[in-house]
């Protein structure tokens, strides 16, 4: 069973090429991400639920009763069909984003990670880059896949998706960006909280519960500033990233898609900063 210990050492110790690099860390995080079942399940769920929901909506929406549908409504309907599932798939992204880091704290893997990357922060940034990019790509595949699959069904609703309309395409890309950034938000919370259950609960609390709480508060108090502030919550701001804005009647308090992107980025950056400071200071 036990192999001889004769060849434990490469003879050429001094001139080996092995060295810690950020490229290597990215590769390591990629291997870690794709070698876990939870990753595969979460991404599969995002694709299946995303496309499935789009098809369901396209098939069950009622046909228009009166004449031709205006262009702005057509565009906005087409975007909605492709992105409606984000309300659910974002939760899978949140759970996965959290597990990417809390799974390591829970199992003790984080000590292997920090032993290999003792300065620690490159490992955190590597996780964010790899998870963020992968989730963005999965989001793109899901949303564009949904748009393509449902395209033949939409004319029944009086809607013809226009794949040359920049506002339409931007909204679809924005949806994928939202999916990735919400996941990174959760990853940062995971790095701060370090326990899976606590981190998932915290992240979902901010994404799902907080908007409702703010809504109730604003309804009770009738305070306008609360309504205005609510637009800057991570989920509310992020959701503007996949709004179809061409010809939209700008509602009061609503951010432009690029503003929504900046607000969500600011949330992510702040949490990542806190996570980085704590990761550097705390014992692993």
């Amino acid at each position: 069973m036990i192999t001889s210990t004769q060849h434990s050492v490469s003879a050429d110790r001094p001139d080996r090429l092995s060295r810690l690099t950020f490229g290597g860390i990215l590769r390591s995080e990629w291997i870690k991400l794709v070698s876990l079942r939870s990753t595969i399940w979460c991404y599969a769920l995002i694709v299946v639920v995303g496309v499935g929901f789009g098809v369901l909506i396209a098939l069950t929406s009622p046909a228009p009763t009166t004449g031709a549908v205006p262009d702005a409504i057509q565009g906005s309907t087409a975007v909605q069909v492709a992105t409606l599932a984000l309300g659910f798939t974002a939760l899978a992204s949140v759970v996965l984003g959290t597990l990417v880091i809390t799974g390591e704290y829970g199992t003790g893997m984080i000590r292997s990670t920090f032993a290999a990357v003792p300065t620690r922060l490159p490992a955190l940034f590597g996780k964010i880059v790899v998870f963020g990019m992968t989730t963005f790509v999965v989001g793109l595949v899901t949303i564009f896949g949904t748009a393509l699959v449902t395209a033949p069904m939409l004319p029944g609703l009086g809607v013809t998706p226009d794949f040359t309309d920049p506002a339409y395409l931007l909204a679809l890309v924005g949806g994928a960006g939202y999916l990735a950034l919400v996941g990174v938000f959760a990853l940062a919370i995971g790095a701060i909280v370090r326990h899976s259950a606590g981190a998932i609960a915290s992240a979902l609390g901010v994404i799902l519960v907080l908007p409702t709480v703010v809504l109730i508060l604003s309804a009770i108090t009738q305070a306008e500033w609360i309504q205005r502030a609510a637009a800057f919550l991570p989920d509310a701001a992020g959701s503007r990233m996949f709004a179809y804005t061409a010809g939209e009647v700008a509602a009061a308090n609503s951010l432009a898609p690029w503003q929504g992107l900046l607000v969500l980025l600011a949330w992510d950056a702040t949490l990542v900063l806190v996570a980085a400071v704590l990761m550097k200071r705390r014992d692993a």
Partner: protein
Amino acid sequence: MIEARELSKHYGSKKAVDGVSFTVRPGKVTGFLGPNGAGKSTTMRLIVGLDRATSGSVTVNGKPYAAHRAPLSEVGVLLDAKAIHTGRSAVNHLLAVGATHGIGRTRVDEVIGLTGLDSVARKRVGGFSLGMGQRLGIAAALLGDPATLVLDEPVNGLDPEGVMWVRSLARQLASEGRTIFLSSHLMSEMALTADHIIVLGRGRVIADAPVADIVALSGGTLVRVRTPHAARLGELLARTELGTQVQVHPGSSTNEPDVFQVSGLDAARIGELAASAGLALHELTPVAGSLEEAYMSLTQNEVEYHAGGTTSASEGASQ
């Protein structure tokens, strides 16, 4: 080469490591011994920067661990077998750890072969036995072909064959000029593996010497004495040789009140002293001191958790 200088780690008011200084030299196996809770694991975590020192410093080959360009090639570390994600296969774990340093498939397969993990390499780590987890931890430590190995309780959970394997691996790596630092709470294990021993008790170094010296340090050879005049002889020995470190240990068994053990004096001297006082001896036997006994006597006041809930005076004082 590992150098610790006045290294301390406090958790709140508890001093896990308390002003420890030592040097672990290349080309030797250095054993790190101490009872449970003595601070061995904390010290090892400080070496690779997983815990931040409260004060003092520790360097590996002249630099803090984190300052090296290829940390995995400087120090291979086995902290505990659980530092592995249970949902991943052994081979993917090693590939992921190695990838940070550009260490690829070839070396991963090499360490898998070396640690005898071939048959389980593709299985998920969650189903591993303690021994298999330990082998995987050692495989990960060897990935970077490191000049220094820090292994915390490497034989924990291994079968006798595995224990032998760790022992010969440690010996061989040391003979190649590497620095080998391994901890254990079993002196007998260290006696077979280590050249040099650092004993830690309650966060402090209580001995740092070659294996042979450790035995001598704690009194060396014991002499078993059986006499009907146990009390008088004990008094006499303690009084006569004040300059030496004479210790009289009462008989271990209560139904033998006439037996006790003496350290710090040889059998001939005890016999002469007894004769000059006119005390009859029924037995006078030198007992070769074992490392285990040496260790027990070194750490008897340093044990953090006594069985049976007995608390020593010194323990109460520091808490």
